[in-house]
């Protein structure tokens, strides 16, 4: 079997294990599993409790429940939210597309720009203008995300009126959505950029001191040629791990931005569900996050072994 096949199976096992935990936790928690599955704040009459317990199969033996759980998961049936009065799967899907619209461009831009600028900053770390740039990025890196969001919202949207104050859209045209998204995307890009920048800078500074970089110079490579032909590929390895984390935690990563900019994405959904103890939504989100984290890790693993042959051959 190929190495990537083995890896894929390992990740699949992780998903099955986590999904099974998701089945076990509400049933193992103290109290009525029905309350644990519906959420604590849902008010029910005695008759509807009996009716619901039968409908959800909670009176069946555990192994039967387990099989039912898996057949539901495979059919994307993640339960029903009595708070939002809608199937969990439908809620998540409608919220997810907005969060992805916000987070994916930010993370991609942040990764590309952060890596390139960070690499150049590490290569020329002794130059004055690079030091200034690094100081600036370090400031962004140290500012809490919500604070920068609030600041930009206050200055650019509230005072200057350049951008809308809240939401993903008002009229719904593509231009309108882009106008709403621009500021949050810029803020989130800056954060992702600053993280990747700092890691890449440090990595390049470390790698450029290696003998292979000197040998590249001895072969007649000049200036940035050495960086991009030799150092870059070695230095980018830690970034891949960071990207996997970033993409895996897209939903929670966008949380602060969504709250400050009052955007109804996944972040806000999870936040509200936590406050109102809407367990079905939380569990559904938990499963979605699981899938994203695991697949991001799998991708990083494959990418890593594509770039670094030493991983591939062991």
């Amino acid at each position, binding site marked *: 079997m190929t190495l990537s096949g083995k890896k894929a199976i390992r990740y699949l096992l992780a998903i099955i294990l986590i999904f099974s935990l998701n089945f076990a936790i509400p049933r193992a928690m103290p109290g009525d599993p029905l309350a644990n599955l519906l959420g604590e704040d849902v008010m029910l009459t005695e008759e509807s409790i009996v009716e619901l317990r039968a409908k959800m199969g909670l009176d069946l033996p555990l192994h039967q429940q387990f099989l039912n759980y898996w057949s539901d998961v495979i059919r994307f049936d993640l339960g029903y939210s009595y708070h939002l009065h809608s199937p969990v799967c439908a809620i998540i899907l409608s919220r997810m597309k907005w969060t992805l619209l916000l987070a994916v461009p930010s993370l991609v831009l942040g990764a590309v720009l952060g890596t390139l600028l960070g690499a150049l900053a590490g290569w020329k770390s002794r130059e004055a203008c690079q030091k200034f740039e690094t100081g600036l990025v370090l400031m962004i890196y140290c500012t809490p995300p919500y604070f920068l969001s609030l600041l930009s919202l206050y200055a650019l949207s509230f005072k200057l009126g350049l951008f809308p104050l809240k939401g993903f859209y008002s009229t719904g045209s593509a231009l309108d959505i882009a106008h709403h998204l621009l500021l949050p995307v810029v803020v989130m890009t800056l954060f992702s950029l600053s993280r990747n920048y700092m890691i890449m800078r440090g990595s390049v500074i470390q790698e450029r001191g*290696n*003998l*292979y970089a*000197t*040998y*590249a*110079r*001895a*072969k*007649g*490579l*000049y*200036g940035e*040629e050495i960086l991009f*032909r*030799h150092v870059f*590929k*070695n230095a980018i390895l830690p970034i891949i791990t960071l990207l996997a984390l970033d993409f895996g935690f897209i939903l929670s990563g966008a949380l602060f931005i969504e709250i400050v900019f009052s955007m109804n994405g996944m972040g806000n959904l999870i936040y509200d569900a936590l406050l109102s103890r809407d367990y079905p939504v939380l569990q559904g989100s938990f499963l979605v996050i699981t899938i994203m984290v695991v697949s991001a890790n799998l991708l990083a693993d494959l990418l890593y072994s594509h*770039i*670094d*042959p*030493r991983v591939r*051959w062991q």
Partner: protein
Amino acid sequence: MSMHNDMNAPVLQVVGLSVRFKTPLGLVRAAEDVTFDIHEKETLSLVGETGCGKSVVASAIMQLLPGNAVVEGQALFSKRDLLKLEEKEISRVRGNEISIIFQNPSLSLNPIIEVGEQIAEPLQVHRGMARHQSHQVAKGLLSRLGLGERSLMRMYPFQFSGGMNQRVMIATSMILSPKIIIADEPTKGLDRALARDVVSEIEKILDLTGASLLLITHDISLAKMISNRIAVMYCGEIVEMGKCKDVLGEPLHPYTSALLDCLPEGGFKPIPGASPSMIHPPQGCKFHPRCPHKTQKCTQKQRIRKIDGDERQVRCWLY
């Protein structure tokens, strides 16, 4: 190896080269007043103990020293002083007209780039050759060095032994047929048989390219095998230089004799005393505290002097 080197013109003239490193402990005098010529198709060996400044000389010529090095003197090559060239200009000389083989092949090669690409790289960088074409040339070269299997081109340095990586470096160093190849301890860390292989490979490429070789080594028997002339370094200075058979056959400088006595053939006699500090070297002749023939005069500086003709030079008050 041809012995008619006297008639060939010098390709590289190193004049009064001195290298000092600024360190927190003080100024390290790694090389002082180093002067030598390398002639066309000649092999000159720079021998001496570890830490005597041999490698520093090689790196200084190529401007590969770290930023805390202060370099003085001249290295004349094609009517230019290599030590005064801008980084952009020297980068056109490196790997193209003068190439260097480092002493640690496994760390010198990029761990995540295929060796074929690394051998072909100088063609792409200096000649602007397309990747595919340059790989063809590299493959041809490898097969001339007896590494002709197609699959080797696609392998990575970590899959090779130290000896094979050394061959990769040798192939890389000669791919553009440079005028001078500098080999910095090419056999360090290799066993006798592998060292002999590497030496025969170096000899093969000298024949193929007609390049001159500056061999930096602590291994006197290796120097004896392939060099025409030999220069003995002690504590940053050349103390004796001349034809290989003269210097090793009838050493003039007491240090050269002491060094030969250390060899198995010389009876394993160690040199008394310890290597001097390069921050506070002894006054005058740097070897005098350990020298069996020292006199009052030895605390004064002696310039390197020519003895019978141009070939033989020695830095000692005895002559």
